[in-house]
């Protein structure tokens, strides 16, 4: 198994697990308070739309771009997207941003569902349908984005899809057994790991893709070839560690902050 394959499987599995946890919380809150029929209809509609988005964008990217340009475009997107995850995880780790709290999200969603009025469209509870649709679509889009960008550049969509499927299956199994929000999943640690992997491969591939500006458009070769992925990973790990050490003293104490601010910022 190559470094790209190992990174691909780990990134898609972890990213999928953490996004499924967030989507599961919303769906569970809607299902328990507004009923399962409309909630599951919203969830299923979002999944169908996600499959369509994945198929169309995947086909377009494969068909329209030469290899080095694909590496540059997809690598740059993956890098910028991955750095969002890494930045948030660093800020949470050093206390400048509150941790994501699934129990709190569940309470807020449940409360909103109880307060919302009754509006029926096409025989469905429209509030439950829309909230579960939006939740599953937005969280799922992040997984689809990672699966497509990573899978295309590592030349293995089946591994990417299998990784994401395994992460989702693990969360759904745990959720079905517990029947409550999965608050004990170490989301920040997982997001940190995924952010590191996405930033690493994004850096590696976007630089390789600069070869599109060479005569002949051959990809740029890193010294050491694919093994240099480990060097890039170590560099991102070192930068993250140094940033947390440097920024941790700036964090205000939790006790001095209003709870509403903490909840809002954690989203």
């Amino acid at each position, binding site marked *: 198994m190559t470094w790209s394959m190992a990174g691909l499987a780990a990134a898609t599995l972890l990213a999928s697990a953490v996004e499924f946890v967030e989507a599961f919380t919303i769906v569970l809150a809607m299902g328990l308070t507004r009923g399962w029929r409309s909630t599951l209809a919203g969830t299923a509609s979002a999944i169908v739309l996600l499959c369509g988005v994945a198929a169309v964008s995947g086909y377009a990217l494969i068909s329209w771009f030469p290899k080095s340009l694909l590496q540059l475009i997809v690598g740059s997107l993956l890098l*910028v997207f991955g750095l*969002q995850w890494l930045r948030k995880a660093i800020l949470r780790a050093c206390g400048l941003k509150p941790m994501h709290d699934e129990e709190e999200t569940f309470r807020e969603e449940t409360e909103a569902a109880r307060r919302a009025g009754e509006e029926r469209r096409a025989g469905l509870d429209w509030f439950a349908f829309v909230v579960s649709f939006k939740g599953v679509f937005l969280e799922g889009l992040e997984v689809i984005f990672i699966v497509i960008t990573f899978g295309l550049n590592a030349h293995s969509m089946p591994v990417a899809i299998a990784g994401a499927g395994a992460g989702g299956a693990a969360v759904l199994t745990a959720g079905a057994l517990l029947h409550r929000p999965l608050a004990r999943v170490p989301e920040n640690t997982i997001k940190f790991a995924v952010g590191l992997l996405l930033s690493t491969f994004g850096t590696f591939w976007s*630089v390789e893709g600069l070869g599109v500006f060479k005569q002949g458009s051959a990809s740029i070769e890193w010294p050491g070839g694919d093994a240099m992925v480990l060097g890039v990973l170590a560099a991102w790990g070192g930068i993250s560690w140094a940033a947390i050490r440097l*920024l941790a003293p700036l964090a205000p104490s939790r006790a001095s902050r209003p709870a509403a601010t903490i909840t809002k910022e954690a989203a």
Partner: protein
Amino acid sequence: MRLLVSFARFWWDFIVGEDWTIAAGVVAVLAGGAGLVAGTALSDTAVSLLTGAGIFAVVAMSIVVGALREGREA
């Protein structure tokens, strides 16, 4: 038109997120790398190491400056 703006804003928020300086820094460094590839005879090793180091430096700076700003505002 409003639909188009909302669509563009959604993708901007989705990919770039809260701190646009990180994305801007990455794009600037990659543009510099493209300039090195197209306009000089530097080897692949030199281009990859220089561009990679540029990305690390710009991102590290953006994260620290952004966090310092948030820390002051908190």
